[in-house]
């Protein structure tokens, strides 16, 4: 995957590079034999998933339209993919992720030094539909529309908490993850410290990348799924010892 900023266009047609409209996510070929099947595999889909054939044709069409120049080969704009595979809207997922990463880029631009600061934050969570990791994961992984308020959602136990409201029992194993599967960090047994993310992509080496917001008012970021293991978020772990810590809607 490759990330490129889309800047805000001025009235005169030029671009204002201080204002990011969104971060565009591209799928790029890293090996000669990369194809539609291998991309869908990286996204975690199987050939018998509903919509697989249509999506494969769409990706093959996009690959045939790729051009190569001295700058390299163009990629497939992830948000441009239409339709769903196995009930997952690939283009929609990357549109949301790209928009939120764009908000983060704008926040960093208006707060110089934030990106690498020792106290890095994200856009204000007040009046934000993606205020923290629970809201972000509930909307992305569990399809809660922005019109539905998630004001009382949090990491707490009980009926208003993320575990009871959304985390079910469909718990795929690591190595069998697909786009938008939810990841749960167990908070070392302390519900205050739980963390949730959404799977984005698994690379050739088996490394899974995931998207979330790190805390209330924290950063929107794509990061390795297991990067927080050992931190105050605890380790990836399920609501039951029988669960892997990864969940599917």
């Amino acid at each position, binding site marked *: *995957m*490759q*990330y490129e900023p889309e800047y805000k266009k001025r009235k005169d047609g030029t671009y204002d590079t201080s204002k990011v409209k969104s971060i565009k996510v591209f799928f790029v070929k890293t090996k000669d034999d990369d194809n539609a099947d291998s991309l869908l595999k990286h996204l975690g889909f199987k050939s018998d998933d509903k919509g697989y054939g249509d999506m494969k044709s769409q990706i093959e069409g996009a690959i045939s339209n790729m051009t190569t120049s001295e700058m390299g080969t163009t990629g497939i704009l992830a948000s441009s993919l239409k339709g769903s595979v196995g009930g997952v809207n690939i283009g929609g997922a990357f549109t949301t992720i790209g928009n939120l990463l764009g908000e983060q880029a704008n926040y960093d631009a208006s707060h110089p030094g934030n*990106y*690498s*600061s*020792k*106290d*890095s*934050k994200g856009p*204000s*969570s*007040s009046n934000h539909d993606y*205020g*923290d*990791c*629970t*809201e972000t994961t509930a909307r992305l992984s569990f399809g809660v529309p922005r019109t539905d308020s998630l*004001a*009382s*959602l*949090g*990491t*707490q136990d*009980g009926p*208003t908490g993320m575990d009871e409201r959304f985390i079910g029992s469909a718990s795929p194993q690591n190595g069998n993850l697909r786009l938008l599967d939810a990841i749960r960090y167990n908070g070392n047994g302390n*519900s*205050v*410290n*739980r*963390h*949730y993310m959404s799977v984005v992509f698994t*690379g050739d*080496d088996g*490394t899974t*990348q995931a998207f979330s917001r*790190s*805390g*209330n*008012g*924290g*950063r929107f970021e*794509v*990061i*390795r799924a*297991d*990067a*927080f*293991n*050992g*931190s*105050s*978020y605890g380790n990836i772990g399920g609501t039951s010892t029988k669960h892997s810590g990864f969940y599917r809607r």
Partner: protein
Amino acid sequence: MIKSYFVFILLFGTEFFLANSSQVFANELIKVTIQSVEMRVIKEDSKSVQLEFSLDLTITNTSKSGVILYGKEFEEINLTFFKIEENKTEIVLYNLATRGSNFVSPEVLTLQKNLSIAKPPSTLTKILKDGESYSFRKKTGRTFFKTQMKSDSNVAWQELLKLSPVFMTITLEMFPHYLNTKPNANAYFAFGKHLQKKWKKYGYFWFDDIVSEPILLDLNSAVVKTHLKP
């Protein structure tokens, strides 16, 4: 093959580097210093290494008046490694924040009620007098990766080892984020500010996050030694 974990403690004086650094690390009223770091390799495989850091921390009141702190344990919400170039520029090598998310519970309202009294309750708060310190131990950890992804701003573990010794800071959450909101309003610092005004005559209530002063750390000291079975 048996893997045994090698534990090491190290410290370097930071005064020289701080004197030459362009960044001011101390806060106006209090400062957090890392007295010692104990590193332990929890897990290592071909892709990553998980480290545990046991930190001896001291919070010192550097102001002329009392400083009120909530609780005795403070959550670590950011861990940073950086180096300082010859031209005094700071280059961040690794930075990963672990801020807490929403936590909506009746316990929060009860705690807010118990705190919202005229005098800071001694069961929930601690007042540091002018020059007084409070020391405690904090355990935290991170997983470091042996290769760097294109989109990853954090350098790979092997690179951190090469650049080591490097400076480390941690950020402490001095007042839990879930208490620091106005009930049902999700407004930052509303409750902390409320307490700050209420407790003014007893001292300054510190509710903001605080970045520790840096410590120079040799990450090469955290290694896994492998021994053959006897």
